[in-house]
């Protein structure tokens, strides 16, 4: 956005205090914001104290503006400038000096206590050194610049107010530039636009850039009349005057003007008729005349006699030739609309073009007209007088057509396919229309073979001939007769000496082919060439040359195309073998780069392959290939490769790294890069993986072998750890309870006492004594006794009991005194722990009972113990009993202790053996393992009564399920406990 022409200025209301200047400024900015947009807003951001808002946003702007507007309204709303700068928006010449004055208003002095001494000058946001200031009086401060090159926009006058607050007073835009230079080299040309309209275009050199808006005006006038200026559009160095008049001198000059001055070019005075570039003649036609060497041109001029006389320039060439010939200028130096071109070849097609200009040579040549062709007439029969007087005017074709062949021996080794071809005679040689060609083929190896004749109208003939030496002749026949014969010897083999030092190089936009003649006398040479292309077959062109020539310019060669050139020397008695060379008339960089890819990628090397560019893509001789490869963040490495190669191995690569590779093909005239190809080198080299994997596998096998051996040797130990002996629950029974004192715990004879299979399981009875109050001291005595006896087991719930007391028979046994014995038997006698939970602060009593069972407790059972005391533990314990009880099938629904009571009924005298009673919760009460039946009965009675609040103890059920001892299934449950001890039955 262009800087505002009137930069923001600080202003104040008449009644405003200086401290409110910011508010006034904000108001002013609000007004200007509506018209000046974002630029002002940016300035506003810099000036308004609302910069205290971090993270400016529009809401903050709006709020701040509203505040300032409100303040403005409150203050009266009248604003005045507090000062200004003179000059306003100056335009200065680069290098000149400049002084600006900042003039403060008196009104600001009155209430603000501000003076010129407080003024600071700034360029943009840079403070100008105070050395450049000068306080002229109390209201005026000046700043001087000795060189305006250091100036920039804006130049602002600011003041340091109270509190060191800097306020902007005024700002100006300073424009620095140069005065315009005098335009030079003014020249004009009148273009003919149509037959009646002309325009004059003048051009000039505008000079150096002025850095300012500089207006150029093309001025022109007659002696008595001036015209409106021509103002260039989009350019500053030319202008076109649409209407001009001839034969009136006009003075033309250019005026350049900018804010720093004006400059005028030197005027030129001319008559526009002298600078006309006319339109070229049109409707050119070429007509043949009776004379075969003359063609008549006629045309129309688009500018004529009233305006100017014309002279012409006529050029012509034989069609197919590139060299133009011109009619002598003196022959066409006057106005005309036709011309007879003489001295042409008979029966030859020519191309003509014409241009014109003012007859006196003033002005400009027109463009060349469109080309038109015409053909001269045949020489025959045209003028008998000429024929009679000039015997050299031969009616027959003057020479035989050049003859050549292409032999294809690929079909059969015994015969050739011979493509005979000859060139049509030039019109000047043919002397008329060639009616036919007559060929004769003679087998020179066999005199008896008849001469074969062929009459054709085309210029080629294909024959199937047996291998041999042939002589082929061809003559061209026109209406007047036959041409001399052209003879070609086709030897059985090209065994003669070839040309030497064959070379081809461009010269003067033509391709020159040169060679060194062989030592033998050469009758003639045949030069063959064809355009090599991957898309089409090589179409051979050829030319015969005399034997004394050792070079030729081949015409019609296309640039950037590869040609295969072959030179054959023809001898009188045979033919030399051909020598070939490839050549380009012009080379260019390849049209595409090679596409590279990897053939093999290793750890530190990669084999790259690419396809050669086709001959159509090469556009020149490929001098080399360049391989460029790099890692993602590495430098590019360049390798130059011989163009004959299609494979290259990159070495010294970094393993496990992504490489980008591309390939460039270069000719003499440039290079072209192919697409990028990426590959990643391998992490391991060839054999490295094997070197790692094989030892690892071997080591693994060795370890496995050792492990197997170890396991085999330690199979018993492993068996014990992995597959512990699980006793058959069906054979378990409690052989003996051992609540004896430790002294009596001599289980050495346990095996005898508990024969194998008599005890199959261990039962744990936990009696929680939460409500110990319900038990009498007598009830607890047996437990105390048991506690004393089992002093070593106390506090080791993991011994034989505890929470998981039976999970490890060995541990249980280890707590006993005779662990050695028990460890060595499968029918280990184990302890059961009867835990009485302490009542209140009393220590719970543990009572150990002993079982012969080696049945480990299941996890569920252990968990159920963990939940001892909870109301939910009962079913778990029932489950436990069910698992181990033999009568589960008949009493599945009954709680475990009911079954226990059944047993108790069966052995009422041994109620002490009722050890598998567990009562949990508040209703659970420890049952005394008293010695006396009465006590037990009483205790049981108490227990039953006490637990009447529970849901499971129902004496009537006990009665209903009374079983005989014999009927009792073998079970881990203590079936018989003798009075006075825990002795099993």
């Amino acid at each position, binding site marked *: 956005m262009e800087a505002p022409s009137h930069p923001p200025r600080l202003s104040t209301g008449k009644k405003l205090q200086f401290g409110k200047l910011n508010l006034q400024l904000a108001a002013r900015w609000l007004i200007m914001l509506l018209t000046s947009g974002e630029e002002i807003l940016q300035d506003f951001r810099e000036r308004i104290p609302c910069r205290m808002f971090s993270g400016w946003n529009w809401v903050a702007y709006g709020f701040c503006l509203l505040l300032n507007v409100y303040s403005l309204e409150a203050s009266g709303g009248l604003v005045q400038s507090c000062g200004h700068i003179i000059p306003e928006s100056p335009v200065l010449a680069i290098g000149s000096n400049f002084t600006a004055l900042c003039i403060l208003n008196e009104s600001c002095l009155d209430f603000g206590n501000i003076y010129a001494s407080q003024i600071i000058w700034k360029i943009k946001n840079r403070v100008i050194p105070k050395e450049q200031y000068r306080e002229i009086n109390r209201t005026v401060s000046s700043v001087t610049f000795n060189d305006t090159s250091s100036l920039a926009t804006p130049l602002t006058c600011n003041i340091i107010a109270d509190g060191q607050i800097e306020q902007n007073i005024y700002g100006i835009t300073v424009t620095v530039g140069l005065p315009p230079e005098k335009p030079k080299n003014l020249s004009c040309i009148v273009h003919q636009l149509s037959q009646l309209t002309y325009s004059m275009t003048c051009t000039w050199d505008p000079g150096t850039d002025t850095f300012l808006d500089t207006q150029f005006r093309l001025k022109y006038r007659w*002696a008595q009349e001036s015209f409106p200026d021509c103002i260039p559009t989009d350019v500053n160095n030319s202008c076109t005057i649409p209407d001009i008049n001839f034969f009136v001198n006009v003075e033309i000059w250019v005026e350049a003007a900018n804010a720093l001055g004006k400059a005028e070019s030197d005027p030129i005075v001319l008559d526009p008729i002298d600078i006309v570039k006319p339109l070229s003649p049109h409707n050119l036609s070429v007509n043949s005349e009776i004379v075969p060497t003359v063609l008549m041109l006629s045309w129309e001029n688009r500018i004529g006699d*009233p305006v100017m006389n014309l002279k012409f320039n006529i050029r012509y060439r034989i069609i197919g030739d590139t060299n133009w010939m011109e009619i002598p200028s003196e022959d066409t130096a006057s106005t005309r609309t036709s011309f007879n071109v003489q001295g042409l070849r008979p029966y030859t097609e020519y191309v003509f073009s014409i241009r014109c200009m003012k007859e006196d040579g003033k002005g400009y040549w027109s463009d060349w007209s469109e080309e038109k062709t015409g053909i001269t007439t045949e020489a025959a029969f045209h003028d008998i007088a000429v024929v009679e007087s000039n015997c050299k005017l031969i009616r027959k074709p003057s020479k035989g057509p050049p003859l050549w062949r292409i032999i294809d021996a690929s079909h059969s080794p015994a015969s050739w396919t011979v493509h005979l071809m000859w060139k049509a005679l030039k019109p000047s040689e043919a002397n008329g229309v060639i009616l036919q060609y007559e060929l004769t083929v003679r087998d020179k190896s066999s005199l008896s073979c008849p001469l074969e004749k062929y009459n054709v109208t085309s210029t080629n003939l294909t024959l199937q001939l047996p291998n041999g030496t042939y002589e082929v002749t061809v003559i061209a026949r026109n209406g007047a007769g036959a041409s001399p014969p052209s003879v070609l010897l086709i030897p059985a083999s090209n065994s003669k000496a070839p040309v030497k030092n064959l070379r081809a190089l461009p010269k003067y936009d033509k391709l020159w082919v040169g060679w060194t003649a062989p030592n033998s006398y050469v009758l003639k040479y045949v030069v063959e060439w064809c355009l090599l292309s991957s898309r089409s077959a090589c179409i051979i062109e050829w030319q015969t040359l005399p034997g004394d020539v050792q070079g030729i310019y081949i015409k019609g060669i296309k640039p950037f195309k590869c040609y295969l050139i072959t030179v054959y020397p023809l001898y009188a008695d045979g033919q030399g073998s051909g020598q070939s060379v490839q050549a380009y008339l012009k080379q260019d960089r390849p049209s595409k780069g090679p596409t590279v890819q990897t053939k093999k990628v290793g750890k530190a090397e990669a084999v790259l392959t690419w396809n050669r560019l086709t001959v159509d893509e090469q556009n020149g001789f490929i001098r080399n290939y360049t391989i460029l490869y790099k890692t993602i963040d590495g430098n590019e490495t360049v390798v130059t490769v011989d163009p004959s190669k299609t494979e290259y191995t990159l070495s010294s690569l970094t393993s496990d790294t992504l490489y980008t590779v591309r390939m460039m093909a270069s000719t003499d005239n440039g290079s072209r890069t192919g697409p990028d190809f990426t590959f990643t080198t391998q992490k391991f080299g060839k054999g490295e993986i094997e070197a790692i994997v094989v030892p690892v596998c071997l080591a693994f096998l060795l370890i496995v072998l050792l492990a197997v051996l170890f396991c085999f040797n330690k199979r018993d130990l492993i068996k014990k750890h992995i597959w512990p002996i699980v006793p058959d629950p069906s054979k378990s029974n409690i052989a003996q309870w051992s609540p004896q004192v430790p002294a009596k715990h001599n289980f050495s004879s346990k095996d005898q006492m508990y024969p194998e299979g008599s005890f199959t399981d261990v039962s744990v009875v936990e009696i929680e004594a939460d409500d110990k109050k319900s038990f009498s001291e007598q009830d607890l005595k047996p437990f105390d006794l048991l506690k004393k006896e089992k002093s070593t087991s106390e506090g080791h719930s993991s011994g034989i009991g505890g929470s998981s007391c039976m999970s490890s028979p060995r541990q249980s046994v280890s707590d006993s005194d005779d662990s050695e014995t028990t460890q060595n038997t499968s029918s280990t006698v184990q302890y059961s722990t009867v835990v009485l939970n302490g009542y209140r602060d009393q220590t719970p009593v543990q009572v150990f009972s002993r079982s012969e069972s080696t049945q480990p407790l299941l996890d569920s059972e252990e968990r159920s113990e963990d939940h001892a005391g909870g109301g939910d533990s009962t079913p778990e314990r029932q489950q436990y009993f069910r698992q181990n009880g033999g009568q589960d099938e008949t009493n599945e629904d009954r709680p475990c202790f009911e079954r226990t009571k059944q047993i108790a009924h069966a052995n009422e005298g041994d109620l002490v053996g009722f050890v598998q009673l567990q009562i949990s919760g508040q209703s659970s009460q420890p049952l005394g393992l008293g010695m006396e039946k009465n006590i037990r009965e009483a205790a049981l009675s108490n227990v039953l009564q006490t637990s009447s609040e529970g849901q499971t103890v129902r004496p009537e059920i006990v009665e209903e399920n009374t079983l005989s001892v014999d009927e009792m299934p073998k079970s881990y449950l203590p079936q018989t406990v003798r009075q006075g001890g825990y002795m099993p039955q």
Partner: protein
Amino acid sequence: MRCHGRPWAVLAAVTKGLLILWAVPGQEGRPLKAPTVQQTQALVKLMAEDAQELFTFYEKDQHLAIHNICRTNEPPHWLQGPVKGPCVLQRLWQPMVRMDQALQDIIRHQRDLSPPGAEILRRLNNTHRNVRGLLNNLAGLFPALSPRPSHRPPPSPAGPTSIFKQKLQGCRILWSYARFMARSSAQLEARGGRRCRERRRSQRGSRTPARP
């Protein structure tokens, strides 16, 4: 002035010339290469051709090519001729001054009838510029010719009012102008303009000794 005789007249002429030089600023004050007689003759020839083409076009464009109504034998008095006698070029001055004004009228009239950029306007403007160019050349060739009036005289009060009449009058003027220019061009080709200059030169030469 008349009472004071010739010196005052000279003084007045010099003052007038100085005033003109002072009044015309900048480039206007620069002397311009004077036109040649050949240029002017070529211009007259060109204008004759152009006038004929303009009339033909105008007659056709304005649909007036009926009964040769434009081809009057009574041209305006200022286009009556033929121009005879010496100084043919010099005698072209007054007809061209009048033609300049007449073409302005025709152009203004055609501006009301034709769209901007119309071919008739382009041709009329081109002819008008030729007329002014010829006046410019004549003024250069014959400085003694009075300068052209800076503003055209008011149109004749008896001028035509209807469009057709305006067209017809324009057409007749163009016809008369074409004939006049053809005659002038032919006369110039036949006699050339040199005689006038030669005569003036000889007159000036014979007069020179008489100058004070």
